[in-house]
């Protein structure tokens, strides 16, 4: 009789302890990552969370493609500016006026080369930030806000690249060609 009571009590205590230890503490909140938890305790695969993560990865890849396109555009401008600068450096102008004009354009080309370098550095920093955000496997609000911010920063950098490129294509490089034509 006594043994039976003790066994039952032990069973009750053990059951309580085991259920306590096995209490998952897993969050079912879709904004919190608990894939390991979810897999271990089979409390649902958090599909909503997975969808958000997948969408963010696609968004990050899309931003990286845009960075790559901007970088290629800058690289092309850099080559053209560099060619024009080399040609201008070799100018052996017959008149002082042409020589002065060529010097000024060469100086401006040099400044624009620095600006191209600066925009390239901006794009590299942005790419680094996006890579870091892509590695973060969580849906917390900071990560999402930072990715959205990276998107806005990229838009601004693209705008700056466009202004720079337009100035080079429609003004400075044409002036450089004209200066060379007078040589």
């Amino acid at each position, binding site marked *: 009789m006594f043994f039976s009571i003790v066994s039952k009590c032990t069973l009750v205590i053990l059951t309580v302890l085991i259920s306590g230890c096995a209490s998952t503490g897993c969050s079912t909140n879709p904004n919190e990552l608990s894939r390991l938890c979810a897999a271990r305790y089979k409390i649902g695969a958090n599909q909503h969370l997975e969808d958000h993560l997948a969408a963010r990865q696609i968004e990050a890849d899309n931003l990286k493609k845009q960075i790559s396109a901007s970088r290629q555009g800058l690289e092309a401008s850099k080559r053209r500016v560099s060619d024009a600068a080399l040609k201008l450096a070799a100018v052996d102008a017959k008149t002082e006026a042409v020589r002065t004009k060529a*010097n000024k354009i060469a100086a*401006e080309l040099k*400044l624009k080369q*620095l600006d191209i370098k600066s925009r390239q550095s901006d794009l590299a920093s942005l790419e680094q930030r996006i890579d870091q955000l892509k590695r973060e496997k969580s849906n917390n609000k900071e990560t999402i*806000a*930072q990715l*959205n911010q990276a998107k806005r920063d990229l838009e601004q950098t693209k705008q700056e690249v466009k202004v720079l490129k337009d100035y080079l294509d429609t003004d400075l490089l044409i002036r450089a060609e004209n200066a060379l034509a007078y040589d």
Partner: protein
Amino acid sequence: MNKLTGNLVGSLLLSISVLVFSTQTLAWSMKDTWEKTKDIAGSTVEKTQEAVGLDKKQPEETTSEEKEFSVAEDAAKGAIVCGGLAKLLGKGNGTVAKAAVACGAANAAVTVLANQGKKEYSDKYAAINNDIAATEKEIQALEKETTSNNKKAVSYKSEVDKLVAKEKDDKKFLSKAGDLRQELDGQLKSNKMAKSKAEAKLEILNKQVADMDEIIKDSPDIESLKTTKTALLSQKKRLTESVKQANGVNDALLAQKTKLDSEIIKRS
């Protein structure tokens, strides 16, 4: 067999005794800690109860349901913990009661929302309240950074003006201007980063304000929800001001760079 059964029973009894003893010790220790915390928080509680009006006798016609979801009563309970913790963490006495009231009221509102079965709103509100202090620190850091960037922009303006006006030797000017231009570029980058951080934080705050609107619309009778929204709006206003200032700094730095560039071209 009998010996084995005896041993087994003995072991089980011993395990149960150990379990009961440790649980009891833990309970005593918890009770002791709670008593100490109550002592430390004592004066704050009095002030808090006074502030939320709990030192006065409650009207008799309060129904049991109203009492169950009473923000004022839960606020005082929350304030015991908030005020006690604030004191334990060594904050100044003057602000403890005030902070405890706000903290207690917010905690109470979280409990009330949860008791009303509005788990999503309760969770959202708890998260927003937990964020406010950290956001405040971030905003203060950003404001400091913006002020510093502002001062640097003013300083760079005077440096550019001085260089353009006073350096007559073109070679020296070009050399100094090159260095200054690089510094201006670096400063533009720092300013952009500060602006970017502020804008990202602003996005979070906008979302939190929208969440608060939704919660308040659902429970317009809970006053502390409105207090939290007011605090968020004040933080939003300061961040918007920081972004505006960062934009101004950006324009000022770009203007200096343009001035320097045209002088460099002119003297080349």
